[in-house]
């Protein structure tokens, strides 16, 4: 199964990141992973959280534009060439990656690469047959 990720549209103005993280923190939601894609005028915050439904609810209530998407969380070995191996598998199977970032599975302490592909289900099938491990939840 794919992992859920929440993206938030942020105007490029000061304090906006402070506001969104406060809203999430005040709701008792823990951030398990995050990255920001930035352009000159706006940013897209992408987060992995403990409670997706609640996060969407508080963000919407606080007038943030948020969206849930499917991403892949794949375990990556904490050794040289760890990511390279995974990339090779994606490349061989002709699966394009839109973006990626890293986090840690706090339960196992393992490193994870979070990947966005066009068709997560197709990628999942490929992952399993290549001996990679994908997580559907970080809880």
């Amino acid at each position, binding site marked *: 199964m794919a992992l859920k990720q929440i993206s938030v*549209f942020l105007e490029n103005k000061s304090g906006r990141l402070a506001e969104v993280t406060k809203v999430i923190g005040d709701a008792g939601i823990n951030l398990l992973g995050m990255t920001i894609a930035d352009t000159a005028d706006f940013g897209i915050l992408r987060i992995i959280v403990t409670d997706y439904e609640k996060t969407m609810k508080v963000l919407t209530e606080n007038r*943030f534009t948020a969206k849930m998407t499917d991403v892949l969380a794949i375990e990556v070995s904490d050794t040289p060439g760890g990511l390279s191996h995974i990339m090779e598998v994606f490349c061989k199977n002709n699966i394009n990656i*839109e973006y990626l970032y890293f986090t840690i599975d706090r339960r196992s302490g393992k490193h994870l690469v979070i990947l966005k592909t066009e068709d997560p289900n197709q990628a999942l099938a490929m992952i399993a047959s290549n001996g990679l491990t994908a997580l559907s939840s970080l809880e």
Partner: protein
Amino acid sequence: MIFNPTAECMPVPERKELQLKKLRETVSRAYKNCGFYKNKMDRVGVKPEDIQTLEDISKLPFTTKDELRETYPYGLLSVPLSEIREVHTSSGTTGIPVVGLYTEHDLRMWGESAARCLAMTGATKDDIIQNGYGYGLFTGGLGIHHGGRTLGATVIPISAGNTPRHLQMLRDFKTTTLTCTPSYALYLAEAAREAGVDLSETALCRGLFGAEPWSENMRIQIEKRLGIKAYDIYGLTEIIGPGVACECTEQHGLHIHEDFFYPEIIDPKTGKALPEGEKGELVLTTIDKTGAPLLRYRTKDITYLFRDACACGRTTVKIHRLMGRNDDMLIIRGVNVFPSQIEEILAATEGLQPHYQIIVDRTGNHLDSIELRVEVDEASFSDETKEMEALRRRLQETIKSKLGINAKITLMEPKSIERSTGKSQRIIDKRKI
């Protein structure tokens, strides 16, 4: 030099007689040959014979820009189509442009109007005019071109843009007279400085600037930076483009060619005529145009009329430099833009809310810039930057193709733009004109 001293220096009472004669002819012809005017006049029960004095013009109904669009393309045609020699249109930013239809007679009148303007600023047949107005359907380029030809001067039809070539021609061809938008003149000055061209060393001595709002402050800047005299020229596509009125070397108000255009100032709210000296909306009637005459056209431009004993010797009435508009039209780099047009584009663009803010500025390079802030639709928000950038680019390209302007697009969070019932907050004009 006065291009046509008989017409331009005619004693006022004599000219009023001439205007009445021309007005009556124009109204009769319009009533007889153009269904649009006949219907309008019949509706209010006015016949051409009712025009006995110049003041009787107030019996005629106004003509509006909306009506010009409704009658697109040939609705105002008042002569057989075979008599039309040239067609011009506005930038057509709403999709339906305003049309100008010119007979041979009209082109001569236009040429003379623009020639009189050039002469007012001191240009003669010995001058070299570098015409930086856009050529094509836009009346700016060909209007000045016709004027330069009529004057007997040399015209360089360089058109708008291509600044390095402008500078090169200016230097190499010993241009004396520059015609373009005032903001482009300042831009050119900046470009000259950067390229190490000293404009005060060139033959350039005057410029006629128009097609967008400007001010005394800009005049000072232009005169200083280009080392020239800068003159304000007024025109609008609906009438003839540039050449309706222009400043003479006194630089004190713009003389209207009264034997071609009959001006009135009205209270924009009541439509009542206002006396000379009172500020209101300029209404123009073409009294020497045959192809598609305009009766009492509401220009939406705010100014006032005055008749002083001008040292130049002309007796024609003057308008004060334009003092604003009676609608929300923005003029950006010579292009007319209505906020409603931007609204229409937004409504037709998937993924964007029709909530927007337009910020117009005139920044470092002296050219107008427009920023359009639009709210992203929650449904169309993507976690991928390339999707968001594509959305932005799509909007930018649509605006470029439909409105002819390059706008900076800023995507905003939903509900971040203040909601207002009026349109005023939607437009922030920071230009210090």
